[in-house]
């Protein structure tokens, strides 16, 4: 059955079943990935999938359902299960949105295609280059080249009819270096709208460098140290704690930022933004999953909390308007809150100058356990880390087997310096996160020495 016919069928059934407002959110995607191991294609993946969700208001409550099958039985399932779901809801119904006045118009993207054979060849070159770069590379566990494209459509009974497309091309390589019975892993990633600018040999060399520089890592003494988080790591930390800025978490008491709008919650030099469009990021987001127009805004400006992030429901609760941050994780999920391009404004100093400013301390370039060692409510974190001892403003030697522990709310207050090297992660379910390297002052370090 065609999507348009299916939509008409579901809407007709919804109306007949007594739904007052209703919406269909459709998602479609293709994904390609080739992984090379020992010169052979170890994994070749080519996937096509589509699915849609229904939400509708019944007796003043909102029910949700979804299906990956598009036929008459599925239409019946959507309506019946959304209805039985709505019956147990206590909350007020959600708004089925008629549309914003204006949306950012994206230019039609010209994405250049690359044949599968060429992608495989590039992954092979990448693996070979990693082995060839340094004799201490004993394994290249991942050498992968992939791309995906996606499409979203929203139709509803208030007349909304929106769609957008996205593309991403990426490659990554992991290199494992061994020396004196120590094993270290290094990796690097390329990401773009397409493969323009992808340098497979250069990427392999960087991954190798990231592995071998960690060889000879020593233990570190437990104590308090000034710390700089590398840009990639800082972006991960910002991502973990992004939820404290969501109005719905503030309203339900899951954030400590309640009543803090207009107050100083961070260092003067710290500005945190949420942009619909941003040069260095791959995400361009004209509207959210509720059809509300997205736009560029500061969340923290020079240390002052400017706004929370709202969807339609949390905005209504605070008598304000949505900030265009109502998102679904996938078509299967209900609308909650997520970020657009969420990033720390870069400073004007280079990373080297930041190291000179710190003089002595630790440069952290790896964090593990972000899903378990962080408490999104209290802001506490205690994370396994990798990094370097910094002495006299210069990177000195690698260190391992230590943790960094602190509190995010405290950390943003203590920021002492921000580099100019803004880096964005790949777009993910909760948004696209970016940060330059951050000099965060003193942090508790526990080590094995």
């Amino acid at each position, binding site marked *: 059955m065609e999507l348009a016919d299916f939509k008409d069928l579901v809407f007709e059934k919804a109306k007949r079943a007594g739904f007052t407002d209703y919406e269909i959110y459709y998602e479609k995607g293709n994904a390609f990935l080739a992984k090379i*191991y020992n010169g*052979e*294609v170890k*994994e*070749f*993946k*080519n*996937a*096509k*999938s589509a*699915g849609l*969700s229904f939400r509708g208001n019944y007796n003043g409550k909102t029910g*949700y*359902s*979804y*299906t*990956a*099958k598009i036929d008459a039985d599925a239409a019946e*399932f959507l309506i*019946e*299960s*959304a209805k*039985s*779901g*709505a*019956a*147990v*809801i*206590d909350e007020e119904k959600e708004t089925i949105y008629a549309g914003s006045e204006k949306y950012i118009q994206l230019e039609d993207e010209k994405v250049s295609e690359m044949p*599968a054979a060429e992608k495989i060849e590039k992954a092979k070159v990448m693996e070979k280059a990693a082995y060839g770069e340094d004799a201490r590379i004993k*394994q290249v566990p991942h050498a992968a080249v992939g791309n995906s494209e996606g499409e979203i459509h929203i139709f509803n009974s208030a007349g909304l009819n929106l769609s957008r497309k996205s593309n991403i091309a990426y490659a990554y390589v992991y290199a*494992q270096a061994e020396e004196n019975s120590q094993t270290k*892993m290094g990796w690097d990633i390329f990401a773009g709208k397409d493969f323009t600018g992808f340098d497979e040999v250069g990427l392999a060399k960087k991954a190798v460098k990231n592995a071998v520089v960690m060889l000879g890592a020593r233990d570190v003494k*437990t104590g308090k140290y000034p710390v700089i988080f590398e840009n990639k790591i800082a972006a991960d930390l910002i991502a973990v704690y992004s939820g404290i800025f969501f109005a719905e978490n503030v309203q*339900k*008491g*899951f954030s*400590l930022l309640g009543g803090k709008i207009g107050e100083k919650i961070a260092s003067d030099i710290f500005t945190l933004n949420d942009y619909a469009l941003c040069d260095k990021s791959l995400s361009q987001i004209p509207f959210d999953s509720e059809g509300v127009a997205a736009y560029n805004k500061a969340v923290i400006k020079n240390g002052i909390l400017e706004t929370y992030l709202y969807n339609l429901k949390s905005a209504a609760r605070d008598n304000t308007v949505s900030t265009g941050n109502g998102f679904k994780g996938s078509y*299967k*999920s*209900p609308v909650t809150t997520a970020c657009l391009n969420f990033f720390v404004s870069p400073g004007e100093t280079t990373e080297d100058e930041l190291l000179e400013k710190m003089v002595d301390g630790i440069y952290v370039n790896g964090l*593990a*356990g972000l899903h*378990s*060692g962080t*408490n999104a*409510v*209290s802001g*506490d974190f*205690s*994370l*396994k880390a990798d990094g370097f001892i910094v002495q006299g403003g210069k990177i000195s030697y690698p260190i391992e*087997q230590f*943790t960094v*522990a602190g509190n995010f709310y405290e950390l943003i207050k203590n920021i002492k310096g921000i580099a100019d090297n803004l880096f964005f992660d790949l777009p993910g379910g909760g948004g696209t996160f970016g940060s330059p390297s951050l000099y965060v002052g003193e942090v*508790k*370090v*526990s*080590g*094995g020495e």
Partner: protein
Amino acid sequence: MISKNLIHDVLTAALSTGGDFAEVFLESTVRNSVSVVNGICEKSVSGMDYGAGIRIFNGLGAVYVYTNDLGAENFIKIAKEAAAAVSKVNALNTVKGFINTEIQNRHKVVVMPDSSQKREVVEILKRSHAASMEYNPLVTQTSGGYADVVSNILIANSNGLWAQDLRVRSRASFAAVASNESEKQTASLGPGACRGFEFVQGLNPYKIGREIAETAVTMLKAKEAPGGKMCVVIENGFGGVIFHEASGHSLEATSVAKNASVFCGKMGEKIASDKVTAIDDATLANEFGSINIDDEGEITRRNVLIENGILKSYMVDKLNGKRMNAESTASARRESYKYAPTSRMTNTFIAPGTDSQNGIISSVDYGLYAKKMGGGSVTPATGEFNFAVVEGYMIRGGKIAEPVRGATLIGKGSDVLLNIDMVADNLELAQGVCGSESGSVPVNVGQPMIRVKEITVGGKE
């Protein structure tokens, strides 16, 4: 759910360019979930997942494609597209006649999950909320969730395998937050099983609500944990996450076959202290990580991984088995048809030992008692792991002393296994969701109380 003739045609198309082996994994899954925040039912979702993945072995490599359009025309077209990526020119293999795999269902379901049960589920979650709030005025928020899954799966391959199974799982989750003026502490529980609606009906929401409230309040009053190397006693149940992260992932063929595990080439060698016997058992009746057949259609079994410190077995799937010249241990798993399977854990635990719990605590002069653990992660190549202690106490002079919070345990799996020097007899399993190459799969972790002679504790004091 789909005809044998069509699957035969799909597998034939998949082998049309010289692939060694072809397999179809098809699923039709219905899920229901609800969430209750602060006693208010906020979300209720029901959904239907449907699709199939086709895998072709090509030497030591594999091609994987998936689609959710299973009409004959598209299904065969997708199989042909996959075949086009096979690079070897072998003699053509043919698809053997299908033989049904007889499956003995060990996980009996009393009441099949159904969206009409949501009202009762919501009541159970609200009772836990009320119990948490009543326990102590410091409890300020709660959240509760519930999810059930009924999945019909079919696995068929070119060797004539035809295996069908029905998998049913239910899980509830409960969390309480305790707050003072400047801080918040969370405690949670997430019981689950391969059971139907009878599972949530059998939970005691009053007891659960009070238990998590008690932990959150205790942790709110706790001081920051100290950092550094010390002796750590890890309690039973979810404490088993230490074995899961520190060793389990490194024993999966997923990393062993790539030579990216610290336990490569160690078969028959001593990798743990004599006190450690570790098992992965997918056959335990109704347990959350159990499966009758793995996701390659093999009947599951009990795999002894480590016996009295000696490495006895890895966890192996067919493709990695081919790469490392080992037989499958029926350990292939995948989140859904969107993932090619690879070797994964099911119910993985350290077997009971002979030490007493009192004996273990009283043996420690100064150390940490990790009563409840949170999640963790590992890099199998280096064996470096980390995980969070969500409820911890200091041990002083052989007695459990003041509560401490914010501790993380880090180390290398190869070291920690050798440092487990006491194992009690109170084995308990606990539920979790494990994420890795083939997606997120339900698992049990488990252990009796254990003592780790020395490990690095990351804390703020």
